[in-house]
């Protein structure tokens, strides 16, 4: 078949993978475009909870105001810093990948994943604090501030789930970097993975002031 003969995969271990139905530049742009579309769906997914938060904040203004003062804004701020650092290293990883520096890609991604672990640990500390005061799901004070705490746990919980998914994704990219896979000719997974990670970060950037500060 005329289109099946791109004889580059064997002698070019750092080149783009052979895809029989697209040329490499198209494959690169398609992957990026696909990820952007997926990020749009993620925004809408969280959009539901943001909309619900807006409605209930208007409806229960005093409860929401009172509730947000019960959140530990220092831990929240610390977590914001941790995620910002992680995003910085994800961006750095892309730059390294574009220059074929696989060792640095691996290192940067491991720092990103390390930050993610730190984020989850801090989140767990926050959750257990809430648990001890009966504010956690099923606790006796879960509805003390009407729908604030349920929304808080839904929003931060689903965000945490995205952090975990992002860690998996970047972990996979890191294994590719460990195999010396990237070069100036092929770095799509790093870029796409970093895009996803930036969104996870971005959502937190909105969650933090909304839940901890605006109240």
């Amino acid at each position: 078949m005329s289109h099946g003969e791109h004889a580059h995969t064997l002698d070019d271990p750092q080149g783009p993978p052979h895809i029989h139905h697209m040329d490499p530049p198209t494959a690169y742009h398609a992957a990026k475009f696909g990820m952007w579309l997926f990020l749009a769906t993620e925004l809408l997914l969280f959009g539901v909870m943001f909309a619900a938060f807006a409605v209930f904040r208007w409806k229960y203004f005093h409860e929401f105001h009172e509730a947000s003062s019960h959140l530990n804004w220092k831990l929240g701020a610390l977590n914001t810093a941790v995620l910002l650092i992680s995003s910085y290293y994800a961006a750095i990883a892309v730059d390294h990948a574009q220059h074929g520096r696989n060792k640095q890609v691996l290192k940067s991604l491991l720092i990103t994943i390390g930050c993610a672990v730190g984020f989850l640990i801090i989140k767990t500390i926050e959750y257990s604090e809430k648990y001890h005061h009966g504010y956690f799901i099923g606790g006796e004070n879960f509805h003390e501030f009407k729908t604030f705490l349920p929304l808080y746990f839904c929003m931060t919980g689903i965000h945490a789930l995205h952090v975990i998914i992002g860690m998996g994704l970047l972990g996979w990219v890191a294994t590719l970097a460990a195999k010396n896979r990237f070069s100036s000719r092929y770095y799509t997974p790093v870029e796409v993975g970093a895009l996803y990670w930036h969104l996870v970060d971005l959502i937190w950037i909105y969650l933090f002031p909304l839940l901890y500060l605006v109240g």
Partner: protein
Amino acid sequence: MSASSTTAIAGSETNYLNCERGIWSWLTTVDHKRIALMYLYTLTLFFFVGGIAALAVRTELAFPGGQIMSADTYNRWFTAHGVIMIFLFIVPGIPAVMGNFLLPLMIGAYDVAFPKLNLLSLYVYWLGAAMALVSLGIHPVDTGWTFYGPYSIKTGSAVVWMTGAAFVLGFSSILTGLNFIVTIHKLRCPGMTWWRLPVFVWALYATSAIQVLATPVVGMTLMLLIFERAFGVGVFNPALGGDPVLFEHFFWFYSHPVVYIMVLPAFGVIGEIIPVFSRKPLFGYRAVVVSSMGIALVGFVVWAHHMLVSGISDFSAQFFSIVTFLVAIPTAVKVFNWVSTMYKGSITFSTPMLYAMAFVFLFMIAGTTGIYLATLAVDVFYHDTYFVVAHFHYTIQGGAVIGLIAALHYWFPKMFGKMYNDLIARAAWFLIILGFNLTFLPQFVLGMQGMPRRYYDYLPQFADLHLASTIGAYINAFGYSLALLNLFWAMAVSKKKAPSNPYDALGLEWRTQSPPIKDNFETIPTVDDTPYAYGTPVASH
């Protein structure tokens, strides 16, 4: 594969169906055409299951009083009918089957942009379908397909499994839509400019945009309903300070646009069929395209017309009523364009054309009755009656299902390289259209007379029309069975081979052999005109 020119290889034995054999070659395929067929088989199965549920409901309603089931069981049957037909059959519907099969062929590509993702979305669909079956198996849901709270929060039926299934199915829908959008942007062949795209591809594009932008909203909403039942979060539960009307807003933010996910691709199908069998260029190609995008766009801001009697403010009710009227404009543009295409054309009344013409007729009734329902004062009366049931089925069965059946007949020779029995196909068409109208025309009258929807029993004065409706439903079901058995026979048994281009059509999909080779084309084709240049010198391609 033998060396050959760029044109289709007549009589070649190798095609996507027989190039690899065995069940494993199907389950691991990334070929969009094979994935389309696996969707087709699964969807047909669920169409029959949902149809059986419909017949159960109609049998119960044939006469006043209980017939074959208790009122409680009745609630479960009509919920099963709605959930299966919507989430498992008609939402994936035309995009998953015809879109998957045709999109790369129509734009001159070897495959969709992400073939593995395409297979994944099929598996995700199967997972969702399995979850829905689990729900039906352990404790069938009795909430109606809309899962309205607070009842959906406290009913003992397996709501979590069913809404979980809808969430998973939505994920599959998102992946397909995303794949199609990227494919249309990135994989068009040389010369296939945006204004030369077949209208079916445009319809898929508009549909995919809705799939990507609306589905996450219902996904999260159903997830919150699951949290409601699992953790008592209370966001939709008035007893805990929540708001059930908020659920309705979120639900319809998806579930109104979803009717366009169902019906826009059918518009596309009709736009392909009518020019071919009228031997005339599609009238107002750009208007047809723009109206598809217009419907998709306006469709995002009309959702609360489902809630005009749910206690929303007068101002919102007026707003949503007015914008709903606007939908009539792009829809009418399409109808006028189809009819103008047929005007003075040399029309062949082939089976696909008969379905397309029936579609235009039925959809006009659907659209016109939609105006009644958008009218505030009238909707207060009609909203919870059979009028809505009839209107809905004219759009979704008369529109989307007829569109799918039309597409199956039209592209059948391409998909399987065989011809079906045309006489039986026409007989089935007649029974389907007859049965459909007999089922749902009486329901308009029932609704106007005040017959409430979802009721297990009714007053004696409604008996005649209910009986007519039930008889219609059986004729309708018989028609569908006949049509699909006819196609199945042609596919599995018949030896009647189809040529590559039985209708002298101009679309790229007709430039390759029937059934196509695994990679669709020997080499990527090039395009220098719209696919609708019928009756002009170019038509001698």
